[in-house]
């Protein structure tokens, strides 16, 4: 009975010792084994590991890609404009020993990264104009800052994998200027459209009126020409007929004229000596 109890207690103790010697490193982790505070082993592969119980401790570090999200900061560009840059960095712990010795933990690392990245950005953005930063050289700047930050961060066992500008916007007070400029630009455009409309309308109207006038004038000319031709021909016809006996024509045409001209409303005052009344005075 005593033996069994002893064996049981011994068994429990052995199990506890074994358990405290084993530790598990997760897929997301890497570990540093310290022996009485002195780093002796770095474990970068996940899985089951062992250490000396009591004498050795384990510190775990993240193996994943971590994010450092900087607070938005104002930076002056080469054309003396202010730009609010909000960037983030993707980094990971590549050397847990160095990392532990220099910055201890993630909070420490982030404050170092803040210093490094901000100063790199200030240098790079200070070389460029605002417009270039926004549209042209953004990618190149991000790459340069990444490379330089990575070099600087290597001392801390950190790899800076990517620094990226999340936002590069104007400060609020400059934004207002941009708005008023945008407004002026649009007003200019609106005015342009309005007066262009009027211009086009006047052009079209006057063109139409011009065409109308020309059309009518041409028609008038043509109609007069036609009439003239008609008159010419009529005159020729008349002349040819009438010149055959001019005397008879005078008589004939006069009689026609009397008939036409002297209508109902006319009043004739005639002398009795008129040819027509020849026989009124005397019979023969």
């Amino acid at each position, binding site marked *: 009975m005593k033996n069994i109890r002893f064996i049981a207690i011994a068994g429990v103790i052995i199990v506890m010792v074994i358990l405290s010697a084993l530790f598990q*490193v*997760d*897929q997301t982790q890497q570990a540093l084994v310290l022996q009485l505070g002195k780093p002796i082993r770095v474990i970068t*592969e*996940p*899985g*089951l590991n062992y250490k000396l119980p009591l004498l050795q401790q384990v510190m775990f570090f*993240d193996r*994943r*890609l971590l*994010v450092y*999200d900087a607070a938005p900061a104002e930076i002056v560009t080469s054309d003396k404009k202010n730009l609010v840059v909000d960037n983030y960095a993707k980094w990971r712990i590549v050397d847990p020993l160095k990392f532990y010795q220099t910055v201890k933990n993630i909070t420490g690392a982030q404050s170092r990264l803040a210093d490094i990245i901000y100063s790199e950005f200030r240098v790079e953005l200070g070389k460029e104009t605002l417009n270039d930063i*926004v549209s*042209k050289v*953004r990618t190149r700047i991000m790459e340069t800052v990444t490379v330089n930050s990575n070099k600087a961060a290597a001392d801390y066992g950190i790899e800076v994998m*990517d620094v*990226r*500008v*999340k936002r*590069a*916007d104007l400060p609020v007070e400059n934004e207002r200027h941009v*708005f008023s400029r*945008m407004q002026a630009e*649009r*007003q200019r*455009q*609106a005015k342009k459209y*309005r007066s262009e*409309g009027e211009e*086009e*309308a*006047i052009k*079209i109207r006057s063109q*139409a009126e011009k*065409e*109308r006038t020309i*059309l*009518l004038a041409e028609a008038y000319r*043509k109609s007069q020409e*036609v009439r003239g031709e*008609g008159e010419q021909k*009529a005159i020729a*016809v*008349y002349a*040819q*007929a009438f010149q055959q*006996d001019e005397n*008879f*024509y005078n*008589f004939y045409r006069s*009689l026609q004229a009397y*008939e036409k001209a002297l209508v*109902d409303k006319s*009043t*004739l*005052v*005639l*002398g*009795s000596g008129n*040819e027509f009344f020849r026989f009124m005075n005397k019979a023969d």
Partner: protein
Amino acid sequence: MPWEYNGKDKSGGGTGLQPPDLEAVIKKIKQRFGGKFPTKFPGGIGVVLLFLFIGWFATGFYIVGPDEQGVVQRFGKVVYTTNPGPHWHMPTPVETVLKPRVTQVKRLEIGFRSTSQATPSRYQAVPHESLMLTGDENIVDAQFIVQYLIKDPVNYLFNVADQEKTVRDAAEASMREVIGKSVIDEVLTVGKFKIQQEMKTLLQIILDRYQVGAAVVAVQLQDVHPPKAVIEAFKDVASAKENKIKLINESQGYQNDILPKAKGKATQMINQAMASKSEMINIAQGDAARFLSNLRGYKQAPSVTRKRMYLETMEKVLAKVDKIIIDQKVQQNLLPLLPIDPFRFKEQSAK
């Protein structure tokens, strides 16, 4: 007290938790230890341990849902992945399983947040995310959503900390990069589709570089408009454009109104002239023919015909008109007394 119950009634069989042969095993164990163990537990400590072991073993069973994939870790290290269906892994703490939903499309709202899922959905604008500079130093307000899913569960789960924030940050960065290369008019009008495509490509490149294990399904620009402060000016441009078109249309209407009328008028004038030409010629020819006929007749007896024609004409003429005939002898004296005004004369005669 199911233990005691089963112990008493062995023939109960199938209804109990233990199959009959297990009972026999327990008996054997009991016999081997010679009844030294306390009899509080029927079957003794061995049975308890066995059941604990079976229970522990059973915790290794898991089902991967149709929208999931199983990722098995042995002592924290990823060893293999499993597809939908029932599976077994070595029980904790040796192996554990994670079951991310790989077919579920995740949705990120950038520049706005839905505040209620009900229809009509309500939105809350997030200006510091949506206002961005364009390449021509204007500002646009662009709201968009990003849809992505897990394409590599191992990478997604273990490569990157805070996956959603990673995608969100990369999305914001790439949107600004793309918009920064465009000009405002393009962004607001025709360039939407192009921007979506470019941004999707860029975002995927960034995510692949981070090895997030996420695939971008779609980038959709929800609402792109000028900032509130200048929206009126933009609307005014649109209405000015409309106004221009209106003015042009009106003047074209005017043109369409007067030109056909003028053409008609012109044709009318020419037709009238042609008609009058033809009329004049025909009248002349007719008159001439009549004259010549008269002349031919006249020439046969000029003197008589002349008299006849004169008298016939005068007869007709004088029959129609009012006439005053004054004797030759009084003519000289009377003439000054006559009322010359024909109108007054007519009035008097009418009375």
